[in-house]
């Protein structure tokens, strides 16, 4: 019995000690020492080819900067989980990251939690200027005059096409041409485009149409206006493609557009540059796929037209980047990634640093050129507004409701705006 009691006692003591150890507020970052290795935790949500590429860049950086005593530990976390983890761990200096890559559209929302370290001195430190970067990416990191993000890339949505079903000369450059071409090509079980009715790329196509026609989601006072006549006309156009012109099958689920395109049952497919690697378009040993699939800018998105794009940015966390030495190490890493973004391009991204676009090796990445052309005239949306991301998602539900035939385009957008206004009103109580 004594033995049992002893064991139980020891067990309890052990558990209590463990709890105490885990529970105590962990402070005191070893990086704060004046000398010795600086270990930077870098969180990102890059999975697939871009994740592997970022890991390689980090590995090379660690090799090259070992003598300067900087080491980066990259942690790949799915985007949704990343934001949750970031929120819950940002105050723990031992586990919170130093650098986080995130979409520019999430910076304003995350800034409500006051977790970012401003980087207003980065231009001076790195000796870089605005002219060297793509404008949307450069401005995407600035919030109310303060730089919270430093650009990595821009990723617009372009138009993939099946070369067996359409020639390069036939490619549409306006949305009216797109409708005509799709109507011509829709026959024998093949559709012009499989327009997804679930919350997906459809909202990016819609928002691109809206921006290229001069529209916006908000007025200058951040009142949502994505139910105005222009927005309704654009959604009506998309709705007609599915329900009147029938160039798309109805009820295409998330991923259904990709499946139909790869099966050769649709001429066009819209998606971001990362799909280039999913298709294998940059695979040097796969000429067959390049003969089958091409990439072109979405109609009305280049030249004088605007188009909607996303942009990945580096951000620094104020609770972990607590000394000039750590900050300089972070800046050094960010510059390294920028300078080595040819590798990043091969992962299916358009680097923000324009000099990369001028290299022969980049120009040889033929499928990326359509995206690069679009990136020059991209807009990231009214992302300085902290609720932009929520508006974008509510708008997505509205678009889905219209494409699914559940509501008319006007009602779908009106309801989406009303829901968003309700959301904002409840947030501000």
């Amino acid at each position, binding site marked *: *019995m004594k033995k049992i009691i002893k064991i139980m006692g020891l*067990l309890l003591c052990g558990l209590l000690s463990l709890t105490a150890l885990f529970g105590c507020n962990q402070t005191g970052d070893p990086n704060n020492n004046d000398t010795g290795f600086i270990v930077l935790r870098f969180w990102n949500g890059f999975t697939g080819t871009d994740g592997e590429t970022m890991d390689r860049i980090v590995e090379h950086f660690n090799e090259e900067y070992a003598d300067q005593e900087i080491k980066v530990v990259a942690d790949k976390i799915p985007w949704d989980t990343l934001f949750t983890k970031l929120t819950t761990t940002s105050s723990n200096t031992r586990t919170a990251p130093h650098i986080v890559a995130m979409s520019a559209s999430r910076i304003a929302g995350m800034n409500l939690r006051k977790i970012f370290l401003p980087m207003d001195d980065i231009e001076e430190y790195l000796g870089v200027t605005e002219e060297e970067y793509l404008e949307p990416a450069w401005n995407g990191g600035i919030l109310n005059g303060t730089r919270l993000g430093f650009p990595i890339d821009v990723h617009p949505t372009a138009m993939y096409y099946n070369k067996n079903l359409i020639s390069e000369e036939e490619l549409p450059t306006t949305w009216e041409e797109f409708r005509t071409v799709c109507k011509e090509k829709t026959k024998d079980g093949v559709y012009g485009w499989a327009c997804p009715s679930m919350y997906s790329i459809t909202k990016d196509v819609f928002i691109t149409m809206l921006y290229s026609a001069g529209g916006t989601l908000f007025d200058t006072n951040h009142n949502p206006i994505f139910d105005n006549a222009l927005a309704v006309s654009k959604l009506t156009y998309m709705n007609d493609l599915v329900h009147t012109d029938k160039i798309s099958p109805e009820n295409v*689920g998330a991923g259904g557009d990709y499946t139909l395109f790869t099966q050769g049952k649709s001429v066009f497919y819209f998606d971001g540059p990362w799909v280039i690697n999913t298709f294998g378009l940059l695979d040097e040993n796969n000429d067959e796929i390049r003969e089958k699939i091409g990439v072109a800018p979405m109609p009305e998105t280049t030249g004088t037209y605007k188009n909607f794009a996303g942009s990945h940015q580096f951000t620094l966390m104020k609770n972990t980047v607590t000394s000039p030495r750590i900050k300089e190490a972070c800046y050094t890493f960010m510059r390294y990634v920028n300078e080595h973004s040819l590798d990043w391009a091969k992962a299916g991204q358009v680097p923000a640093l324009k000099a990369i676009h001028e290299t022969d090796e980049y120009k040889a990445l033929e499928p990326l050129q359509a995206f690069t052309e679009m990136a020059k005239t991209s807009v990231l949306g009214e992302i300085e507004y902290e609720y932009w991301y929520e508006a974008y998602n509510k708008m997505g539900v509205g678009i*889905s409701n219209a494409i699914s035939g559940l509501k008319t385009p006007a009602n779908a957008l009106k309801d989406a705006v009303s829901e968003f206004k309700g959301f904002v009103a*409840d947030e501000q*109580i």
Partner: protein
Amino acid sequence: MKEKGEKTVRAAKPLRNHGKTFLRTVQPYLFVAPFVFFFVLFGLVPLVMGVVISFTKWDYASPMEWYGLKNYGLLFGVVGSGQVAKDFWNAVLHTLLFAVIETPLLIIVPLGVALLVTKCRWVKKFSMGFFYFPTILSITTVCILFNFLLDTNSGVINHYLRTAIPWITQMPYAWISIFLLSTWWGVGGNMILYVAGIANVPQELLEAATLDGANAVQRFFHITLPCMKRTMLYTIIMTTIGSFNMLGQSQVLTAGGPNYMTRTAMMVIYDTAFGGINNFGRACAMSIVFGVIMFAFTFAGYRLQIADDKEGIA
């Protein structure tokens, strides 16, 4: 020396007795201590903290802000635009719909499967694994699998049925798909419990009933089923709780759509806490209100079963 030794003996005796008494008193507490420790740490403390946080506005990173009853006011539509109340109660209704249909399915279907598996010995080995296999898969895997099967235009099911049923994108098919998926996924877990329950039914009772001329149906309803009441009670409670906690199916298969019509309470709570805006206070208030609803339903089921038991004994 002798005196010293005597003193020692006399002093030690009552101490040892006292120690034994103390040990007898403390021993049961030591046995339950590990459970109490973990229950307090992972059950009671989070519950109390949840209640406290529900009266605050907190995004985890910023300092907690006292919010009074505003979170509850928003949930009941007393304050605010009514959007939060609409979203939450619609989601609760969807959850109730799911629980009311899926719970009986996950009670009855596994019972039928368990009987089949137990009675037909030649298929026992094969079918046990066959029916249990989906249970070991994660909900994400199952949803991705069903997405391929049920896609309107390129799914396997529509291909073989030669139809274009919008299984995932339109109502009521989206719910039908969720029920199909949940039943396929959940049958195995309850089946195993029933198989164990059936194995514990006293054989002499069944043999006596057979000798008295009872047929298979009569033996099932009058012997097998009453003998399995405890197993049934456990599966009813656990399945009800599981149904109320449904999240993955709506999140991955239908993304809450079409038009939020498959969005469940857990999904709204999760989005409120971990979506774009981390409103932990409001999410806690939602959890507490939903927890009360869940408790009421589970308790009602428990009471009904107990009442049934008492009637049976009487």
